[in-house]
């Protein structure tokens, strides 16, 4: 029994870490711009597919490929913001939702044209066997993801709290008008937030690719689950993204283990609805009134 429970937990952590790293992208963008990008999952997909090209097809060393992928996807995010978000003449939530949904279809199409329809395998970064703890097994790659996400969260927290640019970005989120009066270029900040969020998406894509494999349509479900995780932890909260992701992953694994595997996908969305109804600010989110 213990062994099973532990194995469910480990499975949950693997998925949860994936959700967490995607949730991080959502939260970063939201905390700076109050915007939700429904195409976030597709940037994850771009990251994974670009890694295939750079690392496996062109044979670049992994760290270099990693950096190039993140830069390239960040650039794609900047282009996306410039062409599709800033040009919007009527920035209603409805309009922005549809634009980002449109972008997700667009990017999925590009992914299919560019990389084909078949899933592409990516070898694990570590040639290590799975780690055994009390009869349960954990993949080194999952551990790697959890650690990386934690470091990312810490680094981003530092960035927002301690650096001038970071502070300016969070100021923008709180009050655009006031920020621009203080001489903070809100447009530049939005652009940066997009680059950061999509770059984080790419990081997610690169790290999870060995576990999930890379396909053009991998992003949509991952994006939605990542969003559920972000909501669960508190949209806009960085540590919340981590906790929400792990929680969601573990809840799904336990659901499969003890209830029914067929209802697994419903778990994430049931949790999403519950959190929206009961505590829309999430577990770690600040109690704020203006957003509702």
């Amino acid at each position: 029994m213990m062994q099973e429970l532990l194995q469910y937990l480990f499975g949950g952590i693997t998925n949860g870490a994936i959700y967490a790293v995607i949730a991080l992208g959502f939260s970063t963008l939201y905390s700076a711009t109050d915007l939700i990008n429904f195409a976030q999952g597709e940037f994850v997909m771009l990251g994974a597919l670009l890694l295939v090209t750079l690392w496996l097809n062109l044979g670049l060393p992994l760290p270099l490929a990693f950096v190039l992928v993140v830069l390239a996807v960040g650039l794609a995010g900047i282009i996306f913001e410039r062409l599709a978000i800033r040009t919007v003449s009527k920035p209603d939530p409805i309009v922005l939702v549809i634009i980002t949904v449109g972008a997700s279809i667009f990017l999925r199409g590009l992914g299919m044209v560019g990389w084909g329809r078949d899933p592409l395998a990516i070898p694990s970064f570590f040639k290590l066997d799975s780690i055994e703890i009390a009869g349960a097994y954990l993949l080194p790659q999952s551990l790697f993801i959890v650690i990386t996400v934690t470091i990312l969260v810490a680094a981003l927290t530092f960035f927002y709290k301690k650096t001038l640019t970071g502070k300016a970005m969070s100021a923008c989120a709180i009050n655009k008008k006031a920020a621009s009066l203080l001489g903070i270029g809100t447009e530049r900040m939005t652009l940066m937030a997009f680059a950061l969020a999509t770059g984080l998406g790419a990081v997610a894509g690169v790290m999870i690719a060995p576990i999930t494999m890379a396909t053009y349509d991998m992003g949509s479900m991952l994006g939605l689950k990542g969003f559920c995780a972000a909501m669960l932890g508190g949209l806009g909260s960085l540590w919340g993204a981590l906790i929400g992701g792990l929680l969601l992953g573990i809840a799904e694994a336990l659901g499969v283990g003890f209830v029914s595997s067929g209802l697994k996908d419903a778990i994430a969305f049931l949790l999403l609805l519950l959190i929206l109804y009961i505590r829309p600010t999430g577990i770690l989110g600040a109690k704020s009134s203006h957003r509702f």
Partner: protein
Amino acid sequence: MNENWFDAMKQSWKKGLAFFVFAGVIFFAGLFLDNYFYQQQLTFIGIFTLLAVGLNMLMGYAGQISLGHAAFYGIGAYTTGALTVHLGWSPWASLPCALAASGIIAYIVGKPTLKLSGYYLGMGTLGFGMIMHVLFREWGSITGGPNGLVGIPSLSLWGIDLSTGRNYLWVVWGCVLITFFICDRLVNSRVGRALRAIHFSEQAASAVGVDTAKAKLQVFVFSAIIAALAGFLYAHLVMFISPGSFNFLVSVKLVAMVVIGGMASIWGALLGSTLLTMLPEWLHAFSDYEMVIYGGILMGVMIFLPQGLTRGVLDIYEKFRIERKQPAKD
């Protein structure tokens, strides 16, 4: 005051004429279209128009987004499917059940969900749609599971077989016409004005005494019932249903129909559903680039014509007219 009354009369007369012409076009289209393909194509457009008009009441008029509307479409289809296949009911007996099931579920779900706004409402409705989709797939004993439900009977009434291309076209478009008529009356009434008021400022609407929660819930239930009607018509047309017809992508397609055609415009919903139902056929030539183009169109319309095609084109026309008039005035 008198003049106003006169204007109102004139306008309603014009509207009546528009409906009349529209009904005539459909009648003759059914009469002269001999090819079953065109008939069924038109029928599909009609079904999607129903869905778009219903969703438009919610999105275009009341300003509440729903990214899970395919769920209600599915509830309508699966209710009538299950009742006719498993229990052997007549479709006409299952129709009220399908509409009621969708309305009741919309009421239960809408009550907490419609308290949300903006992205959160979008996500809440999306979550609901996902959960329903899982249910359609997993509740195999009722829904037939992932492989779908076979053996749904076709429609007939008083011995007339309604399943011929022409008859079904008339049935579906008759429903569309009635729905148009109802929606038009709603929009131009005390209730409709309150809904539009919520769209522009929920705060001000409640400050003039509109029970915004109730109004939103009412229109949500209303659009869910129309979606269920569309689902009913779909199920008895295709005589087979499976979860794939009611998933997230379909919800997105419905939203796209509303916004591309034009929000807050009944005729816009017609245009949007026609365009998007025909789109796969035109994009067929682009094969692999279809998705890219589809996504691009969605983004482009929203960026440049956030009011949709009908409104957007009208606005441009109006601007052009005003600009032309301006110098003459000076």
